[in-house]
């Protein structure tokens, strides 16, 4: 068993929105409903009471412990639940308690729709954003509360490749400066001498860039070449761990395969560990050893790639897999399609219970109330679903 390189425990990343939860409209609606029921079922003595006063009266009695008919009770409970959260601060819940373990030299893939928190998790692991809660261990060290100064030597070992090869390179720096910046910053080379230049050229060569390009500016390169520059920059410090945040998504198919092959070659050469974030499931399957599926800030399924594609357990994973357009026509036509209804819900006011219940084709009552536990159903195969593995 290879060593654990990185481990997170219950990472939560909440971004404050600066707004408070306003439930006035909903509370009003519920109170009107309650009055309607009350008027149907009970006769009240004081007919001159205004609606608002009448409701306050009922609600006060309910709070003091008086029980009305079942229907009215449920409405009043609903009112109570909402009035409790009214005025609470609102957060974007980007990550909602995520445990992930990455071993040395392996690739972990992360898939999910936009807004599910994949990129945030990648950034939080590198401590580009401080986590709201939870712990991060790198090489056995707890780095959660490390200051920037203390993080500095660790940053040599963890790097990131960004999604957009157009905006992630400084247009006023030459390629040599971009790749070499970190080398000078970390004091590997004291100044720009010949050794430094040769080292940068060597890195460029491993990434498939010719050494005469060292004095050129990013705008002189095509998208695929720029992504190679981004990879060279990440590799320059010889890290152990690289987060690839949608590293190939912006590229054309023919260039994409070049970059994927390059990433695989580099992994074999330097025994790198990748956290490969992408929304393209076929690419993720090709490059990863183990894959996590995320939905609305939660990990819903995590397993090695074979069991994910052959034996998906979570209904969301099944729907994702069936939605991939196939280039094999026979298979595409025989494949059963699961088309999810609706859009991803807001991750500020998240659905209760299982977050997926609003779109799930097999959702039952329990899904609305109870949060499913992320549990191991087979060895190394964890799912968060009450009805994991059930037919759709």
């Amino acid at each position: 068993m290879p060593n654990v390189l990185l481990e997170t425990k219950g990472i939560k990343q909440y971004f404050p929105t600066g707004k408070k939860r306003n439930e006035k409209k909903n509370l009003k609606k519920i109170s009107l409903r309650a009055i309607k029921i009350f008027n149907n079922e009970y006769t009240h003595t004081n007919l001159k009471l205004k609606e608002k006063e009448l409701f306050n009266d009922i609600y006060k009695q309910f709070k003091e412990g008086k029980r009305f008919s079942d229907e009215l009770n449920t409405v009043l409970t609903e009112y109570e639940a909402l009035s409790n959260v009214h005025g609470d601060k609102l957060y974007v819940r980007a990550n909602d308690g995520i445990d992930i373990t990455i071993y040395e030299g392996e690739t972990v893939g992360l898939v999910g729709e936009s807004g599910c928190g994949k990129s945030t998790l990648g950034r939080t692991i590198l401590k580009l954003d401080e986590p709201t809660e939870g712990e991060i261990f790198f090489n056995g060290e707890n780095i959660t509360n490390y200051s920037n100064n203390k993080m500095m030597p660790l940053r040599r070992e963890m790097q990131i490749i960004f999604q957009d090869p157009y905006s992630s390179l400084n247009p006023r720096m030459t390629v040599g400066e971009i790749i070499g910046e970190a080398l000078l910053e970390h004091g590997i080379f004291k100044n720009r001498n010949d050794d430094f230049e040769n080292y940068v050229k060597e890195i460029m060569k491993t990434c498939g860039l010719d050494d005469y390009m060292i004095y050129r500016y990013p705008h002189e390169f095509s998208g695929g070449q720029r992504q190679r520059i981004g990879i060279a920059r990440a590799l320059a410090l010889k890290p152990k761990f690289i987060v690839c945040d949608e590293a190939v998504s912006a590229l054309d198919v023919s260039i994409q395969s070049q970059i994927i092959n390059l990433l695989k070659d580099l992994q074999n050469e330097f025994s790198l560990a990748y956290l490969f974030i992408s929304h393209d499931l076929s690419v993720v399957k090709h490059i990863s050893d183990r894959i996590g599926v995320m939905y609305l800030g939660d990990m819903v399924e995590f397993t090695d790639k074979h069991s994910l594609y052959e034996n998906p357990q979570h209904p969301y994973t099944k729907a994702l897999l069936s939605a991939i357009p196939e280039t094999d026509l026979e298979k595409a036509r025989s494949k059963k399609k699961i088309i999810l209804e609706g859009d991803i819900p807001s991750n500020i006011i998240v659905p209760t219970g299982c977050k997926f219940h609003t779109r799930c084709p097999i959702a039952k009552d329990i899904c609305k109330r109870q949060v499913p536990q992320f549990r191991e159903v087979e060895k190394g195969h964890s799912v968060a679903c009450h009805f994991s593995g059930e037919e759709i």
Partner: protein
Amino acid sequence: MNNKLLEVKNLHTYFFTNKGTVKAVQGVDFTIEAGKTLGIVGESGSGKSVTAFSILNLLDYPGKIVDGEIIFNEMDLVGISEEKMRSIRGNDISMIFQEPMTSLNPVHRIGKQLSEPIILHQGKSKKEAWNVAVELLREVKIPNPENVVYNYPFQLSGGMRQRVMIAMALACEPKLLIADEPTTALDVTIQAQIFKLMNDLKKAYNTAIMFITHDLGAIAELADDVAVMYTGEILERAPVDTIFDRKSKYSHPYKEGLLKSIPLLDEEVEHLDQIQGSVPHPLKLPKGCRFSTRCEYSTEKCVNEKPKLVEVASGHLIRCFYPEVGCRNA
């Protein structure tokens, strides 16, 4: 064979820039029949979108159609007056753009934007058009359309905006719908919803669709015929079954490379096959076959002479000197 809705013959569109003439589209021919979908696939810079803009006469300066005919419903659209074109655009031919985020007007309500073409082309009153807009939204499966018409674009999600775009394109029941990368910015689950919607609407209205994308998977899902474009030329054109038939006797090396470079879900390979190099600069196109700089089978003849689009089997056209698989030098 008289149900050709759109026929593009030998279309040449050039951009006259300061640095030189960019020949974005060079000699593209294709036809679309009513109720059929033509998929146009190619990498960025292959001239797919320029072809679509040429058909709708939406080219901006310095772009210009230099040569060729675009015959729509027995009428040549090249050189037609702007006034006449305006009565066709959005009425007989409409377009879905790539970015649902930026192609809707942020300061007008959805209902107003939707009813605009209806008022303009069908001469309905504002109120009638508004009601049609609600019905259109219902048709593209937007929940609660009576309220959504009063919303502004920023209040809708990406998938819903793309549905609004589709509803707008369908407002006047066009004969031809041009969809330029309609799902590129969307997630896979939303993409699947949009594809299903487009397929259903195609059946219901018998609309012809010209579907432009870089995603071969999406083409396989929607198209009846496929044209593969590269640097402004069609390299291969065939029915969808022939294009994706991996055992086909004839095929273009570029398309073969594209198919091989997509990782398959049920296949285990250590290394993906890749096409070397990148798309040539539009001002420095190779002299002979456009693909010769990246083709692994390239010969002297390929570098110096230009191949023609030849019909190798019925309905299957390939622009290559060696279209037969297995007959090329390794």
